[in-house]
């Protein structure tokens, strides 16, 4: 086997903690024990560097991390800049699938033909300990004639003839259903009915045929899904059903080929090699390691400072003025489910400042599922980087890939129609990254770290109502009403105010109900 495939980062893939050099003796060089105990996060970093340095020719570093401002260099006369990050930065088209493998998620890889989407997915399968030939064989090729039976298996013909009830019919399940990594190629070429069967597998973790059920996740293990498609804009032989599209935790674009690496490509063609056939054995994860890896990721804490900014970010998007009459119904979802157009409703709100109102840039709000995914991937990013807690940079790095296809741009917003900003109408990832950056700037400008009266009222309520004197409860009702009046004094209403008003109404209800109960008790 050519040596070039076998080089795994032996030195720590993080630049170290700066504690000097540990003294060694000649005997120490012959002890393999230290090598064997590679922590799982270090092992995942080794995998990442093996893939980008050996397997997939991907010199793109678009997930950037920097302490302070990175060096930026303007290029050309059309506003292009390249930035040189100060910290280790990563290729999204490799790292996002790898994080999906680590958390047991679902990743949609998009891009034109021949850009390595399937290769990346197959590498994930091999990392889970399946042989490369089995992974390749288990790839489900989307095509217009793909039936549910093709996908899941068929009932045994003998049982079909002899069975007296559905329960007597055994199913010859397809082997791929039990693999820890499942790959569906060109999923937008699969007929709608078969997509629905796929949805059950992806969403619920089981498959059903003739009243028989089979779980798709390995026992107690982690399963991850990789889908590929040539586009993300509704193209393909069949439209992807919304519920299935919404199950994609992350969406990432395959990168193009860099001509400076042409020699390596020639070498591979001449040698007839495929990277998935050369994954070093020490880089694969068994089921126990995958479970442990996911548990470690879930345990990464999210500090309050990061939570507050995330909370602020997600508050922008649900509200739309004139979306309904009752205050609670002034949401984009109310407009959409009634067949209305959110863009038109936003345009009709002549009083809003579209520059300030970040919610006006989207035509929908964020689902709870999307938020759960964002939390999980931000933790995975922090864990992968080897930091103790999620940092704002971790959230910023994964957010565009999680929200792509979920937080949809409002094409009628001036942002997508003015000057250089027009680029954002096709570059969803940059738009989402910028949306988060804008939100963080607003958070700072509003001084939310120091002044968040609604958060203070909610904290007060979290102390519980047990034993609360009626007088104190009445005082809090007054405080809630005062806060509502304070919001009312500001002429314009934004998404963040909507969430605050709803939360204040909730507090008002809880306290007034408590006061009434106290009065009834005498």
């Amino acid at each position, binding site marked *: 086997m050519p040596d070039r495939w076998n080089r795994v980062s032996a030195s720590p893939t993080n630049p170290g903690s700066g504690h000097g050099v540990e003294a060694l003796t*000649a005997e120490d060089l012959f002890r393999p024990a230290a090598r064997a105990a590679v922590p799982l996060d270090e092992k995942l970093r080794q995998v990442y560097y093996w893939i980008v340095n050996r397997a997939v020719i991907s010199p793109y570093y678009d997930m950037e991390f920097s302490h302070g401002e990175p060096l930026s260099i303007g290029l050309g006369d059309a506003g292009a800049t390249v930035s040189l990050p100060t910290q280790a930065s990563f290729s999204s088209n490799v790292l996002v699938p790898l994080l999906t493998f680590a958390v047991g998620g679902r990743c949609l890889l998009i891009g034109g033909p021949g850009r390595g989407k399937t290769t990346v997915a197959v590498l994930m399968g091999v990392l889970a300990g399946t042989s490369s030939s089995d992974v390749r064989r288990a790839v489900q090729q989307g095509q217009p004639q793909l039936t549910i039976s093709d996908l899941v298996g068929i009932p045994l013909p003998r049982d079909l003839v002899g069975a007296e009830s559905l329960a007597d019919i055994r199913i010859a399940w397809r082997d791929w259903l039990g693999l820890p990594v499942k790959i569906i190629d060109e999923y937008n070429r699969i007929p709608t009915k078969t997509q629905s069967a796929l949805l059950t597998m992806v969403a619920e973790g089981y498959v059903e045929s003739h009243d028989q059920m089979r779980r798709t996740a390995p026992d107690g293990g982690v399963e991850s899904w990789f889908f590929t498609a040539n586009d993300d804009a509704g193209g393909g032989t069949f439209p992807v059903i919304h519920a299935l599209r919404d199950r994609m935790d992350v969406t990432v674009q395959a990168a193009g080929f860099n001509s400076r690496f042409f020699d390596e490509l020639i070498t591979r063609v001449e040698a007839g090699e495929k990277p998935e056939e050369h994954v070093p054995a020490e880089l694969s994860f068994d089921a126990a390691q995958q479970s442990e890896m996911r548990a470690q990721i879930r345990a990464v804490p999210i500090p309050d400072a990061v939570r507050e900014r995330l909370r602020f970010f997600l508050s922008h998007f649900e509200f739309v003025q004139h979306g309904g009459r009752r205050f609670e119904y002034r949401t984009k979802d109310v407009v959409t489910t009634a067949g209305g157009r959110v863009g038109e409703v936003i345009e009709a709100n002549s009083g809003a400042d579209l520059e300030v109102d970040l919610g006006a840039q989207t035509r929908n709000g964020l689902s709870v599922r999307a938020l759960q995914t964002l939390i999980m991937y931000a933790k995975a990013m922090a864990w992968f980087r080897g930091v103790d807690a999620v940092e704002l940079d971790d959230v910023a790095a994964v957010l565009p890939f999680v929200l792509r296809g979920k937080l949809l741009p409002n094409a009628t917003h001036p942002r997508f129609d003015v000057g250089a900003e027009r680029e954002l109408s096709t570059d969803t990832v940059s738009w989402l990254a910028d949306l988060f950056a804008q939100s963080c700037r607003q958070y700072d400008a509003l001084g939310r770290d120091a002044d968040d009266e609604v958060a203070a009222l909610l904290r007060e309520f979290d102390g519980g109502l047990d034993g609360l004197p009626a007088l104190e409860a009445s005082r809090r009702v007054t405080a809630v009403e005062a806060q509502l009046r304070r919001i009312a004094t500001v002429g314009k209403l934004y998404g963040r105010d909507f969430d605050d008003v709803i939360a204040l109404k909730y507090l008002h209800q809880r306290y007034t109900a408590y006061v009434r109960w106290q009065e009834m008790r005498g």
Partner: protein
Amino acid sequence: MNRIPVQLANVSAPFPPAELPDLSAVGLDTALAAESVQAAHGDPLLFSRALAAGIEHDPASVTDRERALDLVAIAAWRAGALGLRVDALTRLESLDSAEQRLAAAAALGVGVDVLDEFRRRQRSDRFWWPGRADQRGYVLATGGFRGLGGAWIRPPERVEPLRDDGAFAFLVAGVWWRLDSDVWGARLSLLPEPPTTAEQRDDGVTVVIGPDTHLAWVHVREQG
């Protein structure tokens, strides 16, 4: 002009190409040792060649475990694994035979006639080797532009000595880095917080930085 990090002692190819020696007769897995050298930030190729050069001058080391370990320690240190420095210097002090001295000098890539001077000077000057004067006192360059395979995206702004010998702290683009170094090796690592610096020592060692280079050069002024 150099644009990438370098140990000047390695510039003139100090060892001929050689396969990794086989020491299985004395129960030593040299392939494993080469991997360990790499993990200790040394160069496994240089380790192979240095070890082969040493063994060539002391064939008895192939069947004598302690003699083999002497050469392994010296070759690993010579390959840039800084952690082996103390062990290698200790072993250099206790060489018994002429063959061992010859082998040790060969593994270091220095003439046997300067071995004693090398041992003596290394006790107080970790950056000394016989060719240093020819390099006008320069020993190594560290850092380098990331775009060319180095570590830094901007030239270093400040350099401060640290308490440990051969250790310095660099402020680069708002981030502090630590350098551990000696004549054969250098290792950069990120510092999680600003370092506690030491007083300038009067040992002639300085680190040269400039606004137009991403490299930092370690230079030693010969003591009068």
